[in-house]
């Protein structure tokens, strides 16, 4: 399926906060309670529509473990958006946010849209991080904030779509250099008449790859 834009996302956050589950919920609309540790970076994609335009989201789901931090870092650069996830039932994951944010800011391009996500909102009884704290943190660092639950799918769509909207707006504002793929944005074949690096027979025209 052809798309107008392709946005590359990266999901970061401590191990076990539910990054893979968010992705699974978003792409497959299902919840897997037991999930293996992500080794390296997983990969998912889904089409969404914003402003009447088909947008393909290509999402890198990174491993949260420290051991894979270096691998993860190498993925920042090509991402237009990042979901920074913490677990509302584990305060330490919230405390590590600063580290993650620094990492992201350092390795990504400056325009990357970062959304702060407090996951596992369904486990209200075990909550350790108040919603207000998350909001405050987001405000301080200029992030969008949202609490989600990968289990109940609450706000999951919205998190991804709102990020995409933000990116889309930035494109409209001209903040992003859409011709530089390193920014994590790619223009679909029919939308890139001016792009010198994307010929008509380019890879973007391949229609059979809707799932990558």
């Amino acid at each position: 399926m052809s798309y107008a834009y392709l946005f590359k996302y990266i999901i970061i956050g401590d191990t076990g906060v539910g990054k893979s589950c968010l992705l699974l919920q978003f792409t497959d609309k299902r919840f897997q309670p037991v999930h293996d540790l992500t080794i390296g970076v997983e990969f998912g994609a889904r089409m969404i529509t914003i402003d009447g335009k088909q947008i393909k989201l290509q999402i890198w789901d990174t491993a949260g473990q420290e051991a894979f931090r270096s691998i993860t870092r190498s993925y920042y650069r090509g991402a237009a958006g990042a979901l920074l996830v913490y677990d509302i039932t584990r305060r330490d994951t919230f405390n590590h946010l600063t580290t993650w944010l620094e990492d992201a800011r350092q390795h990504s391009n400056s325009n990357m849209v970062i959304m702060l996500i407090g996951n596992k909102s369904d486990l209200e009884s075990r909550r350790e991080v108040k919603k207000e704290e998350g909001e405050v943190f987001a405000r301080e660092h200029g992030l969008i904030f949202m609490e989600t639950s990968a289990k109940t799918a609450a706000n999951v769509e919205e998190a991804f779509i709102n990020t995409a909207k933000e990116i889309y707006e930035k494109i409209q504002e001209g903040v992003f250099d859409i011709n530089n793929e390193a920014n994590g944005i790619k223009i679909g074949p029919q939308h890139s008449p001016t792009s010198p690096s994307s010929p008509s027979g380019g890879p973007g025209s391949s229609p059979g790859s809707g799932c990558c």
Partner: protein
Amino acid sequence: MISTLSETWLALLDASVRCGSSGRGCIYLGDSDGAVHAISRQLTAKMVAEAHIKGIVQIHQCRQSAYLLTLGEDEPAAYSLKVWDATLVEQDPMRSRLSLKSVIKLSRVKPPTCFAVHENLTLLAVGYEDGEIQLYRGELTRGRSIKPKILQREGEHGSVTGLAFKTMEKSILLFSVSKHAVTPFDVTNKDRDVNFQGDKVGGDLNCSCYAEGSSEDHFIVGRSDAVYCYTHEGRGPCYGFDGEKHLLYYFRGYLLIIALASVESYHLTIFDCANKFVAFQSTIHSSEPIKVAASEWGCLFLLTSDGSFWQLKERDLQTKMTVFYKKNHYDLAIKVAKCNNFDPEGMADIYRQYGDHLYNKGDLDGAIRQYCKTVGKLEASYVVRKYMDASRVLNLLEYLEVIHKSGIATQDMTTLLLNCLTKLKQNEKIEHYMKDPSCNFLDPETAIKVFRKGGMYKQAYQLANKHELYGCALQILIDDVRDPCKEDLYNILEKVLQTDKAEEILRKYGSSLVQLVSQVDPKSTETWRKVVALLSLSPSKRELVELFISKKEVLVPLLEDICQACQYWWNEFSDYDFESSDGPLMNLLLEAYLDQWTKNKDTDVATKEKLLALLTKAPDCPSWDWARALFACKMFGFSSGEIIAFEKLGLHNDLLAIRYAEASSNPSLWPKFFETCQKYAETKPSLWKDAFYLITTPPEGSYAAQYCPQHIVEEILERLLTQNLMEPLPIIDRLCKTRLKLGSVRQFLSKVLDRKGIEDYEEESRKLQAETTNIRQHIETLRTKPLVFQGTRCNACSQKLDFPSVHFLCQHSFHQQCFDSFAANERDCPVCWQKNRDLLEADRADKKPTKAAFDADFAVKLSNSKSNSFAVIADAFGKGIFRDEDQRPREILGPKRSIEKLRLAVAQPFDSREGTSEARLRLHEGSLSYAEKSISTSSQAPIESLLETMKKSPAVPSGFEGRRSPLTQPKAATKLPFPRVQSTSASVTSRQESPQLQKRKPPVSIIAAVQQSVKQSEPKNPFEEDGDTSNPFLEPEPEAATSKNPFEEDDYDSSLNPFAE
């Protein structure tokens, strides 16, 4: 999952193995001496070509065609790529050699590091040590000199370490990996070979491979930190495997990663790319570096440069699964199973095991999720039971919902689900189920049942409504709600009537419905009208009628509709097959009308008209029951109806009775009474008789009742006389008992008196009386006084009498000789014989009219005697009314006839009402049975008494039996002196029809016997009458007849016979 790791040494030449390729049932190895070796399945190696003298750099076997390509050094600094045809070798690796197809000489002197060839053999990419990548286009097999094109200049990213083509639908990509970069090129078009965004990190030689995944193909590059996948859109996922990579190899969904662990030891990792798990991990020690990884014959081979190799064999799927289960890696098992296209049963089994595992671990929530996936395959009760035991209603609910959504739920499941919901008080959910059209998995009938059981009538009602189960809804209203609001009820009713099943439903609930409606809305005529209107359209309305018997509002219009419809059809189509079963309905309608009519007898003219109309047209129907109609009319005192009924039934006397009753209360109706008589008497003259009885019957009760007017009485009497229906005497007798005015009968009396001179009769009577006295005297004389025979002449020959002579009491004397020859009978005087016979004949003739009078009298008496009919019958017996002289010639039938007569006589008063209403019959039943009883007793008692007298009579001759002819002797009666009596009871029972039985009986005349007993004083021999020749007992042997006479054997003188005079 890869179990065996066996090490073997392969006998090769001295040279060291540099590269290899596999894929088409053969492994090819290229060595440092430039030779190509083929390894067969038997793991024996054979050199099949000497390709490049200075050694082979890379060898590649095409997948889809039997071509082998080798890249090697032919001369120092002279490299070429050779295309070999491997067809023969593939067939027999041990005897054949590769044949060279073409040679492509590389233009550069720099050593190449790798090449990649597209499967279509038109694209060839060669990478060099200095970083240059050349692309050759053209038919490689033709071997023409093809000009290369430089894709990447030397020195940009370091030496090229790997190349791979990726074919997509519309384009062909070339992935290249150098020491410091990964670069994809689009090589679809000849003129526009472009590269685009790659990665600034590269990989080592042999550390890249092309993986054909199930969803997408990846170009995989191994680096020290991880294994990175590249797609046409750039970087894809990556797998974090540590270690300096030595070799990457992709085979059958697995990625083999060989990393350097230390000197002479390698980490071996086999990773399942699709399911993302490590299938195998091991460390192997080898002094020589591993050069080749090849997958063939279901095994993985690793070869070192010196020719030793490891063989890794994959376990079969089942074993793999078992391992997963053992390690409780169910999710992996599921993934693998999915990849291997397990059938649904297999999958369900895994899910079940997973579920069981989670269940045993106590994770009931998780378990139910797994169980949910087994729906349709696993027996649901297995899960249900587990969760019932654990009383986890919520989990159970989840499971049951899934089951219902999949549409395989049974009634029990639905019940359970709804029970769960009710238990959890999840009314919202229930409501939701009922409203949401997507939740149509609930089997409505079961659901309704459950709801009703659970007391949730409202829901049940809604559900029933929704699914148009109006019958159910109605049932709910009737049984459960009990006090529904009018609107609900009517709505439902309306809907019910619109459905096809209206009849069925109404039949089932009709009565309670009627009750309910009258309870809810007592003034509901409007609705009923509607109901009737709807019912009228229904074909089975007839069957519904009975529901509304108690509901006149419905019943009458409904019946009217039915009957009118019939009528309509009847008129319209003469050939229409009349709805013959409608008779009872019409009867019913009649009764309903009558019921209505009685409420307001005098003013309700409309109903009366309806009634009359109905009575005139209804009898067209074959099943119309007149008796019932008559009964109804009688019950309700609807005399007009009775009249019609009697007319139709031909019960004219009853009709007459009615007319009479009417007339006696209303004098103006007397002409009508007479007219009726006249009308029907034409065909049935006896009606006059009935009329006579009617007018002469004293009116009961009221004095106001009027007697018949004079002229009518006269008329009737006139008819009686002229048509000779009755003897005048009984008429007069009857008239005497009434209070009719003498004036009205005067004419009659004078007529009667005029008809015959009474004086004549008186004189004759006097004469006869005198005669009788004479005879009596004579008999007396004969009996008491001696008689002197003075005759001197023989009455036969008129000669003088002399001995031996015969004298008769009649003063006739004969010569013995004359008598013998002259007499017909030794007992009778030949002279008097003729005279006596004539006398007897005359006597018999005289009796006939008397008989008729008797009969009439008997009938009258019987009909008048209400309580004492027995006495009447007994009396009649005594008078011999039942004796039928006419039947004498057929004496065999005699008794039967007589009995018949008796029955007729007894039944006569009732028979006349035959065909009237049943109840009336019943009314008479008592008296009838009484009459029957009286008959039996009256017939039995005299017989018994007779028997007694018979026993007492001293002279029962011993020779009696002996003298009887065996032919005529009735078998059953041998021991009785009076054999006929024995059959008395039988003949009485035979009265209750049994002709055969009757025939077997000896010819018996009970009547005679009875009569005999009653009239014992009479000297008349009862058997004398049998003395006729026509008596069957007399015919064969006349003597037997006489011998039968019990009195004959007495010393009784035959001369005492009063008739023997």
